């Protein structure tokens, strides 16, 4: 598959786009009357914690949590190191937006399983890979190159976070 053409976190468009997203989200939330509530109680707060356990407040994050513990990075990176933008402003927005969306989806159950990382989620991931592995990736990755001229780290390393995908936890022979 071609490298996904989504906006890289941190850019101006990104902030604008997500500022709107957040506004919109809260708008709908207010309308539905659940947003604020669930966001606060169910999980929203946990988004501001670096503790992986915060993520498994939601049982549906369980497979990824389990996978993460078995995968190569559990000693070196926690969830937010990979899944949230590094620099503060976008991080704050992403947290609010994700936290809101996840809480809302979680409460209404309006999400498709298996859960798949979304294009924007992938862009965040890619940026984080490059952040930690800047030196190593120097010759093969060019941060300012347009997406179609980039090579996705996940193309080869999709398993670094959670091992072999088994998003619904189907037992493969490796974990009988």
């Amino acid at each position, binding site marked *: 598959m071609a490298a996904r053409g989504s906006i890289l976190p941190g850019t101006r468009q990104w902030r604008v786009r997500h500022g709107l997203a957040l506004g919109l989200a809260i708008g709908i939330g207010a309308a539905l009357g659940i947003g604020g509530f669930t966001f606060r109680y169910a999980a929203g707060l946990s988004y501001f914690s670096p503790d992986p356990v915060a993520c498994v407040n939601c049982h*549906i994050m369980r497979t990824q949590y389990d996978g993460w513990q078995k995968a190569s990075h559990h000693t070196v990176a926690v969830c937010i190191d990979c899944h949230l933008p590094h620099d503060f402003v976008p991080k704050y927005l992403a947290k609010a937006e994700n936290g809101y969306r996840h809480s809302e989806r979680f409460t209404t159950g309006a999400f498709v*399983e298996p859960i*798949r990382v979304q294009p924007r989620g992938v862009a965040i991931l890619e940026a984080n890979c490059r952040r930690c592995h800047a030196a190593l990736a120097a010759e093969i990755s060019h941060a300012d190159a347009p997406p179609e001229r980039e090579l996705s780290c996940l193309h080869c390393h999709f398993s670094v976070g959670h091992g072999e*995908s*088994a998003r*619904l936890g*189907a037992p493969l*022979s*490796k974990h009988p």
Partner: protein
Amino acid sequence: NIFQKKVEQRNPYVRLVEVGEDDTDPAKWGRNWPAQYDGYKHTAIRTQTRFGGHGGSEALPGEKIERDPWLKRMFLGYAFSIDYRDRRGHAFMLADQEATERLKKPQTGSCLHCHASIMPLYRKLGGGDAMAGFKDTYKASYQDLSKQLHDSGHAHPVSCVDCHDPKDMSLRVTRPAFMLGIQALAASEAAVPALPSIALWRAGKREKPFDPNADATRNELRSFVCGQCHVEYYCSGKMTLTFPWGKGLKLDDAESFWNETKFADGHTFFDYEHAETGAPILKAQHPEFELWNQGIHARSGVSCADCHMPYMREGATKVSDHWVRSPLLNVNRACQSCHRASEDEMKARVDVIQQRNHDLLERGGKAIVELIDAFLAAKGRGAPEATLETARQLQRKAQWRLDYIAAENSMGFHAPQEAARVLAEAIDYARQGQTVLLTP
């Protein structure tokens, strides 16, 4: 065994009713496990995909031998030329067996092994020993055993108790023919890259024969339970129902197994004589378990249940979808759990694989029909018996291969390259038969 214990310790299920070995009625189990029972009941719903599920009406699946006349031609002289339809959901397995016109020819009691929840009856017939009871059912007529089944009140399609231990709901296999088959396989030298527990057993003391319920991994059991029925077999009046695994699970292994099998009367094994040529034909039946074993998924530890019974969320817990059916009706859970590609892309991949396989099947059908025509022509010309006999042997080899992939129900998906290899050989032998018949 440890696994059993573990399960007992946790025994995660609150039970409203106790269930035991003789509870063949799924409704009763359903009170304890409603989610799985609901899924199970859905197998009565009509489903269809391009090659899967069934055409035809609500009432009666489409007639395969009408759709593909070359199938009928291959089967002339055998009951399958009378009536051979698309399969459908588990809920129908007993009714469809009782309805098939194939019963117009005498059939044995063995047929019920895979179409009913028959274990209690086997135990009754064997005075408590199911294996003993099973072994002689081939002597009984289908009608006779079917009557006993109905009288005993166990006339249900495959049921919970056939795959689950009522003690703790752990998976287990129950079918005698599978036990004998898998033990013979384990005892052989055949490579089994997809079945690690057999390699493990072979490396061990081998005091007791391989026992899937004790020795197999949970992941293997997720396929073994299906392997109780979705396999090639002999099921007729001359000997006990047999799975031909004593030399391995490959098409070639089964062929030499049959070739070296002799009937009581000393005659080499065959299923029927072809009506037009008199060739001693081998009939192949739904070798899903065997073909899957040749594929990359099996090697990678991907089980039948992973694709045909994927997990689904029930509130806070995950349950296996007991609506056993085509994964193409369920791609996001059946495939995307492991594959990163989109649903459309996954469907397209399957379609490419199945299309190639379908093209080769049609090509093979054409070849086999031309072989039979050539035979009749040669016979008409008074060709020497030696020539005709060579042609019959080639027809046997060709039909065995063609039928094997035609009867397998994934249209090549379970092992695409292996299926294509088998069809290439089928075509080669059919055409060779023609040349033999044409050579003056």
